[in-house]
């Protein structure tokens, strides 16, 4: 018995997976060759679970800027901005983000996780009400616990349920903040943002959208779901991350709120952690630029997303409702999910194995995330592997294939 014995239930579940000869948590890449290829146990493997939506991790311009900044300004800032001051890059990145979103203010955090912690714990406090989609990301739940606001969950993507809960709060003092995500990270479904914006207007609540998975992915110019749904004016705060489409690490919040900058002296996850190193800031700035001048990246991304989503659906797999870059195949149970994941890996395809409670239902998921950098050939290779393994595990009948292909 040790101090960690309280987590025995989790350990038991993990040991069950290990007993099948698999260590999902210790996948170790010998090398990473490109945004879409790595070397695992000496074998070239297609990376299909990286969130590297625009494939910018190896972009020559981003790498060059990052190297240059590191050479000139060093490997780290070794402190927080409030204590040690900002580098020119932090301020420029904030200006560029504000400009990109057409907003007055932007603030950069050290990760997207910390952005949610820092923003949620600051926007609402004791006596306020935080309305969270039930399927919210862990960083949103954790942010809600860092503050003192009352936290109320509404049914996933259900504006009527949200409305009902806000109506119950009618006349109750305190600010109300609705939090939703652009694209949900497990099934790739988008929030019904038009309807949610309508509820927001009806009830006088504030609205925050976490565009972690939709920046550079959705909208005419890549500003995310708010842009795609045409409701940017209703969204009071946008949170996002650099760790997906921008290929680096870090988080941000943008807003037109006139008091925005007070967050810099009250938001603890902003104040009490080291700021991003110059090399990260520089590649992120360049990636933001590349994202804007190369709209074809988004077009390729969506082409690949549709190909994988429609391909899996045609094979007879149950997938998420929309063809977005996150494509998940629903597995009937943990044993099949683990075996399927392992067999895909043996076939040279790496993706994410997601098990409850991280998944929205009791089913495990094989979660892929598609990149603009995937070739059509790579997507087709992945589909062939899915078909092959699905048959071996008896998940796909010959019939289903025909039904799927005909529809």
């Amino acid at each position, binding site marked *: 018995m040790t101090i960690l014995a309280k987590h025995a239930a989790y350990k038991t579940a993990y040991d069950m997976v290990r007993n099948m000869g698999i260590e999902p948590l210790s996948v170790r890449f010998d090398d990473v060759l490109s945004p879409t290829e790595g070397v695992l146990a000496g074998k070239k493997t297609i990376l299909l679970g990286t969130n590297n939506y625009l494939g910018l991790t190896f972009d020559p311009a981003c790498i060059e800027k990052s190297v240059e900044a590191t050479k000139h300004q060093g490997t780290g800032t070794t402190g927080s901005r409030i204590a040690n001051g900002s580098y020119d890059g932090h301020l420029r990145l904030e200006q560029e983000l504000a400009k990109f979103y057409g907003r007055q203010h932007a603030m950069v955090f050290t990760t997207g996780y910390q952005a949610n912690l820092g923003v949620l714990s600051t926007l609402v406090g004791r006596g306020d009400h935080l309305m969270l989609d039930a399927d919210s990301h862990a960083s949103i739940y954790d942010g809600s616990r860092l503050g003192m606001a009352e936290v*109320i969950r509404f049914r996933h993507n259900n504006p009527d349920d949200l409305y009902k809960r806000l109506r119950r709060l009618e006349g109750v003092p305190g600010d109300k903040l609705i939090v939703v995500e652009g694209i949900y990270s497990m099934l790739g479904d988008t929030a019904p943002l038009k309807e949610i914006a309508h509820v927001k207007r009806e009830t006088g609540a504030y609205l925050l959208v976490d565009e972690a998975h939709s920046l550079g992915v959705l909208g005419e110019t890549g500003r995310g779901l708010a842009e795609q749904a045409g409701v940017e004016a209703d969204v009071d705060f946008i949170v996002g991350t650099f760790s997906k489409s921008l290929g680096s690490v870090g988080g941000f919040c943008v807003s037109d709120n006139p008091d925005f900058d007070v967050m810099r002296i009250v938001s603890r996850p902003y104040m009490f952690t080291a700021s991003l190193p110059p090399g990260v800031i520089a590649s992120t700035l360049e990636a933001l630029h590349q994202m804007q001048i190369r709209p074809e990246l988004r077009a390729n991304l969506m082409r690949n997303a549709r190909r994988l989503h429609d391909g899996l659906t045609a094979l007879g797999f149950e997938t998420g409702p929309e063809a977005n870059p996150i494509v998940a195949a629903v597995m009937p149970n943990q044993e099949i999910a683990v075996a399927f994941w392992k067999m895909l890996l043996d076939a040279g395809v790496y993706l994410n194995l997601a098990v409850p*409670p991280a998944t929205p239902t*009791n089913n495990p998921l094989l979660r892929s995330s598609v990149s603009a950098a995937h070739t059509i050939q790579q997507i087709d290779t992945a589909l062939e592997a899915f078909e092959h393994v699905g048959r071996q595990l008896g998940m796909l009948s010959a019939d289903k294939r025909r039904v799927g292909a005909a529809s």
Partner: protein
Amino acid sequence: MRDDIASIFEQVLNRPVEITDDTDIVEDLGMDSLGVMNFVMAIEDFYDISIPLDRITQVQTVGDLIRAVEELRKGA
């Protein structure tokens, strides 16, 4: 109120249940976290209340739940 709660349990679990104030919702009824969430949301609909997350984490038994619902309805 306990009868109403029992019938909501039965709807969510899809089987008959026997409950007393001391019934432990997770241990005795074998609910997982998703089951608990669906159950809580059904209770919220039935009584037209929202149970804040910190209140939900304080609820372990059926008796705790009844008290929480009563307090929230009074507060409303």
